[in-house]
């Protein structure tokens, strides 16, 4: 049982004009087994929240705290956060030229598990995970995200989720750019991990479509750098109907 606790998180980015405040006090607690959907307009700071938790160097934390089972996440290096059990499926996964998917996955699994996975079981594990995500085996030999289509990049993120088995996963618009079949396949992947490991999920999305596959326990409306409303799954339907007008005009 794990708990990710975000308290009054305030984050700025350095711009040409100085620091711009993006997160203005975010409070959110995610426990194992729970799925929290985060919905909000473009530019409201959802990715900033995701990156700040993962430790992207671009963002400066100006206040608040993030803890995982009481441990200070903000004091950890990026890799330590992953080893502590956090995972971020990125909205825009990064291409790493010359580094093969196989090599990358094995290096990551070795780091997270603390020892190199046994080659014989590992190969099977990767093959199976790729097959269940409908990824062609040839992706293993390609370079990380290089020349992948938008949808292929997202599948590759969920492949890593399956193999690295984190405690809490943040999925930043994993559904964007997926066709209907891919959406189902990727959602099934997430649900598989949830079923096998009691994963806690922060699911950032613009659409209720994915919520039909991955059932949220909570829905949070995110606007202008903070959570402005919370509710159950019905809130997502309301947002789809009415948009964010009532949250952004205030």
């Amino acid at each position, binding site marked *: 049982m794990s708990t990710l606790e975000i308290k009054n998180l305030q984050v700025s980015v350095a711009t040409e004009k100085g620091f711009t405040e993006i997160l203005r006090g975010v409070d959110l607690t995610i426990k194992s087994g729970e799925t929290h959907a985060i919905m909000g307009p473009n530019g409201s700071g959802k990715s900033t929240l995701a990156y700040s938790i993962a430790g992207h160097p671009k963002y400066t934390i100006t206040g608040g705290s993030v803890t995982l089972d009481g441990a200070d996440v903000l004091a950890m290096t990026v*890799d330590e956060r992953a*080893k502590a059990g956090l995972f971020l499926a990125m909205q825009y996964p990064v291409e790493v030229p010359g580094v093969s998917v196989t090599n990358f996955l094995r290096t990551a699994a070795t*780091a997270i598990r603390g020892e190199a996975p046994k080659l014989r079981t590992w190969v099977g594990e990767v093959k199976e995970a790729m097959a269940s995500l409908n990824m062609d085996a040839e992706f293993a030999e390609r370079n990380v995200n290089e020349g992948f289509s938008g949808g292929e990049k997202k599948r590759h993120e969920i492949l890593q989720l399956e193999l690295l088995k984190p405690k809490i996963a943040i999925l930043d618009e994993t559904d964007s750019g997926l066709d209907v079949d891919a959406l189902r396949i990727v959602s099934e992947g997430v649900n598989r991990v949830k079923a096998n490991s009691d994963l806690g999920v922060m699911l950032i999305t613009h659409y209720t479509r994915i919520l039909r596959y991955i059932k949220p326990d909570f829905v949070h409306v995110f606007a202008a750098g903070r959570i402005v409303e919370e509710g159950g799954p019905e809130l997502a339907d309301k947002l789809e109907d009415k948009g964010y007008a009532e949250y952004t005009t205030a």
Partner: protein
Amino acid sequence: MSTLTTNYLVPTGREEAWRFTPLNRLAGLLDSTVALTSTNSLVAKSLPAGVSSKLVAALDLAPMATTLDAATIRVREAVTEVLVLDIAKDSEVSEPIHLNRVTIDGQAQASRLLVNVGTNAKAVLIIENQGNAVIAEDIEYVLAPGSSLKVIVLQEWDAKTVHLGSHHAIIDRDASFTSLIVTVGGSVVRLLPTVEYRGPGSSAELFGLYFATDGQHLEHRMHVDHNVPNAKSRVNYKGALSGDKARSVWIGDVHIRAEAEGTDTYELNRNLLLSDGARADSVPNLEIETGEIVGAGHASTTGRFDDEQLFYLSSRGIPAQIARRLVIRGFFSEIIGKIGSQEIEERLMNRIDDQLAKVGA
């Protein structure tokens, strides 16, 4: 030849060709008062079928191409015997030909090698340079029509080595030449991979990789002379530098003459600066005398680590140091992967890893 000629040619450092080179670190290679040992220093353990070698008196073997390079002129004056490799016409040499350098510590050396690739012959040659040496060399590759030669030249020198070299290829009709130069050792290494064509349909690929750490000066100067119609050239050199006064120089001169219609050329140099205090000079230079070409282009970039790549890898639990190694290996893989020998590829990457560890990157 008189010593006067040499004296006259000794560079001062003001010449375009020498302006980047630390002339005070050449250990006498350009100093006519220092004698150069001139016996052959390249040995083949065994030669595959279709390949023969012989030592020919230098007086009986005029160079195939003229040169303006002071070091090469000096080599030609000093060398008494030339190693000649002949690859018989029509032979497809199945295994790579290996030449290993024998160095004499503390002694300045001169070396001449001539490789003749017969009509429609096909071969791979690997030249390995290791140890400490002070050496100037003149290599000529002569490719007969329809032939193909891939040369891998490894500079895995120890720290004190000073190495000046000219690697000139003469490529006849429909022949293809690939050179892959890897320089990961030495104090000063200055190599001149140059190409001229003898007939249409010919092609040259010049690939290179260098990694310079503290105080190393690694210089590679290409010159591709498109002097015939319908020839092709590709240049791709990648370098990484780390540590105080690590220095690289890459010069890519491509000359498309008026008669070289249908030329297709592209040259690329990428440098990765891994620390402050390192400096990479990169000068692509395309001179075009005819508009009737297929394509001509160049690109040169010098940059630092991509933070987004490092973040992505780290966010998967990979420690920063290993992430940097992965990115560097990835950066070089495009070139290293062309070597075609897992053993050599691994050896080179491990050496780069070790050197990185030494400079604390």
